[in-house]
């Protein structure tokens, strides 16, 4: 697989989860804010293709002091499609292999329809809560 290849429905992607947005004591441990785009997400929300990267590699371009506390969740592209989301390749030169984006969740798109997207982000949080593949303190 090449990282410029289209993303197939059969693939999985990884999403980084800041520890602030994870509480194992709750029924839905991941907070939906973990999927909210910020002003830097102009082309979409960042994810990493599981066929091209290991979970920990999704944290490779992050300050190590911060990266050690992050979780990584795995999401099925098929499940994203059911929510009306698409995933497209967006390789980052020199960055971790397999970078892709969910263009529907760009900063401008989110700001334009916040109410609609908030409910979708909650569904993403539920999916992520069910498949945490990397936890703080693991290599």
């Amino acid at each position, binding site marked *: 697989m090449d990282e410029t290849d289209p993303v197939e429905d059969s693939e999985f992607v990884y999403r980084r989860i800041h520890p602030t947005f994870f509480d194992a004591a709750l029924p839905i441990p991941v907070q939906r804010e973990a999927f909210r785009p*910020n002003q*830097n997400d102009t082309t979409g929300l960042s994810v990493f293709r599981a066929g091209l990267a290991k979970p920990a590699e999704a944290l490779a371009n992050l300050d190590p002091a*911060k990266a050690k506390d992050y979780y990584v969740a795995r999401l099925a592209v098929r499940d994203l499609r059911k929510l009306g989301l698409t995933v497209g390749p967006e390789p980052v030169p020199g960055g971790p292999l397999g970078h892709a984006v969910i263009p529907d969740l760009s900063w401008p798109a989110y700001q334009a329809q916040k109410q609609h997207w*908030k409910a979708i982000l909650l569904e993403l949080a539920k999916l992520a809560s069910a498949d945490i593949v990397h936890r703080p303190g693991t290599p």
Partner: protein
Amino acid sequence: MPMLQCPIPKEDWVREVGERNGVSAPAAGHRVEKPVADAGPWEPAVQKIVQFQHLGDDWDGFGAKAPSRELLESAIGLAYTFSQKGVGPPHRVVPGVDGSVIFEWQNPDGTYTEVENVRPFYAEVMRIEPGKPAQHWTLPTE
């Protein structure tokens, strides 16, 4: 009517902020102080919000904005307003990536509610009951 859907008049919210934080005359470099009055069941939530003043911009390593002092004081005021009205405390309080503060409830029946303090004296509420579409409204209600 679920307690979270009770009316939140702006005057009540403003009064709570004024009493707890003294925002009418902030001094330069003023810090968000722990309010003197105990917030009862909401005390852990208030403590958490006070701690958010130590967040700086880019606290997540991906460009997240830190909440402003005014936003934190407003969120504390809303916490006290809810407390006064008998609303149970949230199960989670988190900073948003764009400088907001979010209160979240996850009830045993599957109902999910969140109040996002977007800017001082303005919050967006989303409530989703199982099998029903999401409900949205804003605070203050009047």
